[in-house]
């Protein structure tokens, strides 16, 4: 594991190059350019507002702005997560000519894919920050937790990405399963609603590490509250575990990639 990380650091130039390649290709083809990075979040936020509105009508009270802000804050990490996973699943298969011809640590491919998505994520964050300032969300000391939460999000995404990319190489239909889960995953994760709404069943929503990370992000950014210690610890443990398992599985299966692709 340590050795694997060392090798990855040695290949940092390659990671940067492949990330740049992904970004260049994406932005070259899309006429919208940088709008591409915020396109999906905007659509997702609109869908969220619509759902919120419907719920408000049913419950017969007015649409609250805080809810909309929460949705916007939670949608960004969510879109980062699903686009990373979606691209990671294809990262090895899509570069089969590289995998079968040239040696380098294969994790580079997944890493650069996630990094490219992280770039999109950062662009979207920049836009969001401007919006949050406009609606006067304000700052608080708990924002210092945000870097840790984002790190957990990245670790969890990377771990799953490594695991699924390797799995998809050996079993090609994994990508269809993943696609379906990603499509409906938003309803099983507290993005458009808060886990609190479930009362006693709240824990089930938060067992998904992504759920607890999103909730904590919402807490520190919008609600200005201290993160829930128990769920924070759980998120740290769960996402580190996913990351380590992902790395190990990837590392163990890596030698067989070239002949099974």
């Amino acid at each position, binding site marked *: 594991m340590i050795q694997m990380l060392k090798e990855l650091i040695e290949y940092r130039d390659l990671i*940067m190059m*492949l990330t740049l390649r992904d970004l260049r*290709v994406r932005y070259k083809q899309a006429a919208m350019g940088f709008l591409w990075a915020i396109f999906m979040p905007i659509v997702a936020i609109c869908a969220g507002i619509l759902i919120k509105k419907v719920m408000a009508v049913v419950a017969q009270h007015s649409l609250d702005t805080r809810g909309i802000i929460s949705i916007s804050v939670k949608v960004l990490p969510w879109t980062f997560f699903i686009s990373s996973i979606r691209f990671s699943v294809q990262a090895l298969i899509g570069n089969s000519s590289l995998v079968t011809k040239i*040696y380098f640590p294969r994790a580079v491919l997944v890493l650069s894919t996630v990094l490219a998505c992280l770039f999109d994520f950062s662009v979207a964050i920049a836009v969001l920050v401007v919006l949050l300032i406009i609606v006067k969300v304000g700052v608080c000391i708990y924002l210092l937790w945000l870097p840790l939460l984002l790190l957990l999000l990245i670790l969890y995404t990377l771990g799953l990405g490594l695991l699924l990319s390797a799995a998809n190489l*050996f079993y*090609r239909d994994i990508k269809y399963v993943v696609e379906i889960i990603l499509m409906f995953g938003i309803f099983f994760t507290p993005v458009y609603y808060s886990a609190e709404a479930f009362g006693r069943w709240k824990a089930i929503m938060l067992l998904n590490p992504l759920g607890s990370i999103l909730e904590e992000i919402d807490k520190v950014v919008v609600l200005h509250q201290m993160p829930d210690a128990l769920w924070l610890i759980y998120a740290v443990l769960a996402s580190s575990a996913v990351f380590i398992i992902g790395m190990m599985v990837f590392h163990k299966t890596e030698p067989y990639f070239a002949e099974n692709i």
Partner: protein
Amino acid sequence: MKYALEFDHVWKKFKKGEKVNSLRDAIPHLFKRNNKNVSLQDLEFWAVKDISFNIEKGEVVGIMGANGAGKSTVLKLLSRILIPNKGSMKINGRVSALIEVTAGFHPDLTGRENVYLNATILGMRKKEIDGKFDEIVEFSGVREFIDTPVKRYSSGMFSRLGFSVAAHMNPDILLVDEVLSVGDISFQAKCAQKIRDLLSSGATIVLVSHQLDMMQSLCKRIILLQNGEVIKDGPTDQVIPHYQNIIFKQKEADLRNKMKAIEDQRVSVDTRTMVEITGVEFNQSYKLGEPIIFTLYYEAKEKIDNPIFWFGILRADGVLCCSSRTDKLGIKIDSIQGQGKVTIDLGKNLLAQGIYMVRFSIMDKEMIHPYVIRNKDVMRVDIEGPKSTSDAVFLPEIKWKF
């Protein structure tokens, strides 16, 4: 002295046939585990069997063998793309492979971007590339189009750029697989020069190629593979004849099968013949300078007046190397009837090494109708030593005077 590459009893197996590569197939597979073992082993084969060799630092070694001998598998093992099933290998130094030089190219990126991308994939640092960028572009000769997406490149420009990037690495160990046939003659000359530069830089080089000339001029040692095993490992001059032998045997077998097929067809069409060639006697293989004599046996069922005998030797690729006709030589044959024999004496053999077809025919006096054509004799010329590497048809005794 530490070796650059060490192969210690390396085995590598592959599976034939369709692989289980989807969950849909994998799940039913779990339930029929009991006969799984047997069927899988049937489908497996060893692509590399118990190969051991050591390559010293700075050595230039060629790997040769017929198609399917396992050359590419060995290269892939060397470049760490595949790992052996059994045995161990050690690689000391930075390896770079000129295997698929354009593998890292992305069609939508410009030449410039692709140079950077591909060079990093091959293991160069960004700073290194900055320093060598101009050299690489100059070498490839596509400077004018360096900011054009490579999808608009011609295939020649594409592979030239790929080769240029790969050729400007400074590896400790370089693996080369049949990539020198890129571009036009002047570009190929540049490539050969580049390889020579690398040679003198002290890099260890492993070459895979079928081009005898190149192997002879570049390598001092050749490892000959057949069916995944090392059958010869030694100085180039000693190994190349063995390689040629393998190739010729294969060609010979192919040719015999082909000619047999033709012969079978002919017989079924043309059954009524007035004269038959019942047999031909000659040695199956000759060496340079050895006398060649063919003895032809025929049987004429009817009397044939003024027949013309024709004979020719064709190289395996169809080039007519020599032929002879009795009427041109002024030999008059009044008539033939019944059994008879003809001897054809070619004197000393001057043909270069290779596989040849020998064709005989007996025709009527106006050369309009061949009574019989015999087209199934194959002879082989083996020549040992370095004299024999060019593609020449004949190897006469040539003396140079200055």
